[in-house]
């Protein structure tokens, strides 16, 4: 589904790692871990087509547009932007032909799923970090794309929000979607995500999460 052939990425002239060869099957659930600045988010953007690779090839089994959905880190968003939560979430319908009624139903369901009821009319500025993150996830859930790329989806989420997130990730996985998740929470990765890509300067390794991440994770990797 996602195949990278001798892919290198990063700033011009300074590739972040040695060329990456990678194949992620359709319906797989993969985490990307590694130290700060090792290129996790950049790799995700390269896969999403938002950044050009320095060399190498990527092929997706789906068209980039409508086939792929990307959850950016929320610091990219201008919190003063004059839009409310419901409008932000509804942007997930972009490019899809649905009846007004169906849209309203799905929007309500997404808001309910992500515990966003009662916040529909709140401006972005009045949302907490966790509420905004859940809104972005709700928007992602409306896109129905077969490939989901999530950049630090657990950021800013509290205990309850994280439970909700992992439930949905498992549900999406169960529907046969392909997921790639950049995550710093190694314990959670070990618990929830079967395979992991570890990015290091010299080499990248794709293996079972349990194999890459030792029992006491925080001291082992990175």
């Amino acid at each position, binding site marked *: 589904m996602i195949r990278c052939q001798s892919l290198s990425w990063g700033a011009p002239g300074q590739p972040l790692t040695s060329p990456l060869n990678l194949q992620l099957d359709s319906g797989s659930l993969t985490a990307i871990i590694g130290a700060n600045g090792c290129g996790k988010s950049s790799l995700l953007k390269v896969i999403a087509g938002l950044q050009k690779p320095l060399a190498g090839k990527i092929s997706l089994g789906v068209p*980039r*547009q409508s086939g*792929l959905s990307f959850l950016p880190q929320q610091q990219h*968003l201008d919190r003063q932007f*004059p*839009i409310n939560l419901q409008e932000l979430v509804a942007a997930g319908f*972009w*490019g899809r032909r649905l009846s007004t009624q169906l849209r309203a139903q799905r929007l309500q369901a997404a808001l309910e799923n992500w515990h966003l009821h009662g916040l529909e009319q709140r401006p972005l500025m009045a949302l907490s970090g966790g509420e905004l993150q859940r809104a972005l996830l709700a*928007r992602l859930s409306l896109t129905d794309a077969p490939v989901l790329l999530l950049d630090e989806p657990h950021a800013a989420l509290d205990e309850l929000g994280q439970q909700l997130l992992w439930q949905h990730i498992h549900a999406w996985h169960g529907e046969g979607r392909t997921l790639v998740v950049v995550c710093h929470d190694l314990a959670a990765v070990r618990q929830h995500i079967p395979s992991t890509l570890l990015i290091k300067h010299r080499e990248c390794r794709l293996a079972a999460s349990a194999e890459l991440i030792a029992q006491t994770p925080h001291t082992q990797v990175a």
Partner: protein
Amino acid sequence: MFAITQLWQPFHEFMFMQRALFGGLVLACSTAPLGVFLILRRMSLIGDAVAHGILPGAALGFWFAGLSLPALTFGGLGAGLGMAGLAAWITRRTGLREDASLAAIYPISLASGVLILGIAGKRLDLLHLLFGSALAVDGPTLQGMLWVSACSLIAMLLIYKPLVLDTLDPLFLRTVSCLGPLAHGVFLTLVVLNLVIGFQAIGALMVVGLMMLPAAASRFWSRRLPVLIAVAAVIGCLSVWLGLLLSFYYSLPSGPAIVLVAGAGYLLSVIVGPVHGLLRRPPLLTSQ
């Protein structure tokens, strides 16, 4: 004493006042959404760069073709786009901060405009070019303003949705649609078009004020984007109307009068505006 009829009497009596008012009102309506989006995109300075850039182009147009509307318009259009493009290109190629690269463009444009006018023999008044005059709005100029306003309002309606999302979250839009860059390009072209057509009525430097001041003021009145645009348009229209009246009764130059009324509207909004205005408690001390 001041009579209420004085508020519209000049527009009744004098054709040139009527044209200036009509042109100013349509211009205020079409620049309002542009100004609001410029601020949201953190591109407020682009307007200034383009307006300064218009000067040498319009001066060149005047030098070669005299005081003709197409020459001034196309000269201004080319030079305005060129200057904004040059600033963007320098930023992209060298990593110089965007505000620095824009700020470097202003004096170059302004100086070369003044220089060209000097060489051309001062037949075109510099003050006129910078600050315009209501008298300058003749039939063809008014027609141009109507066309530009109508086209930009329609175009803004068409690109509104992608432009909103491209402004808020370009990364997300790029994964679901390829309309982002198109919306951005159309938007910038509209900004330049409006500035160029506006500079002949109220001056190259003043038209930026009509674009940015109502937009900046509207931020203090609402948190909803469509309302922001409507408020900006209303403030812009009021400024045009009151400004023209002031300039008529007190023999003031019309461009500065309009912009200063808009400026007063802005300061008033800063103080009493319900959304984080100064008198609003608790005040917003830090901006995010």
